[in-house]
């Protein structure tokens, strides 16, 4: 039922653009880099400003 509602374009469905899909993929990859840095014992220091 939920799948049908989505295929009909229910109002609650959020439109996901190709740009957003690309950004999410790149974000996940970037986040993995920081996770790996932490696994190697690196402390992440955020910008001061």
């Amino acid at each position: 039922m939920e799948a049908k509602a989505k295929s009909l374009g229910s109002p609650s469905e959020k439109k996901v653009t190709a740009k957003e899909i690309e950004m999410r993929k790149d974000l996940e990859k970037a986040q993995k880099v920081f996770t790996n840095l932490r696994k190697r014992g690196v402390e992440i220091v955020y910008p001061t400003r």
Partner: protein
Amino acid sequence: MKKIICDTGIISRYIARDMGVRDKQIEKIVATIENIGLTNIVITIVNKIELLNWISSNPHFTKTERPIVVKFIKDLTVIHINEPISKLTEVLSIKNINSKPADTFISAIAKYHKIPIYTLNTKDFEILKAPLF
């Protein structure tokens, strides 16, 4: 949803958050950005330079890791500086003689385009009367 300028401290925490640790401040940032929508967040050229400096100043990235993080920063929409923004920055800096250059530029961009700033540094932007998210 309107565009929102995300400050350097917001974007850096959003990208580099520690997935294994609960942190209320960072959870709030993540929830806020998800609500705004990834494609609605923008940065100024000042933020982009700060983020790229932040990445390049960390000596622990491998040769393959650094470009991965830079790629996401490059995905973000950037607002550049034009002559009216430059002149507005000058006016703001004269009115607020102790304002920091980066905050002043970002404030001028936000004022010129009427885009609110999402920042952890509200105090300095309030002095400059910048629109805040």
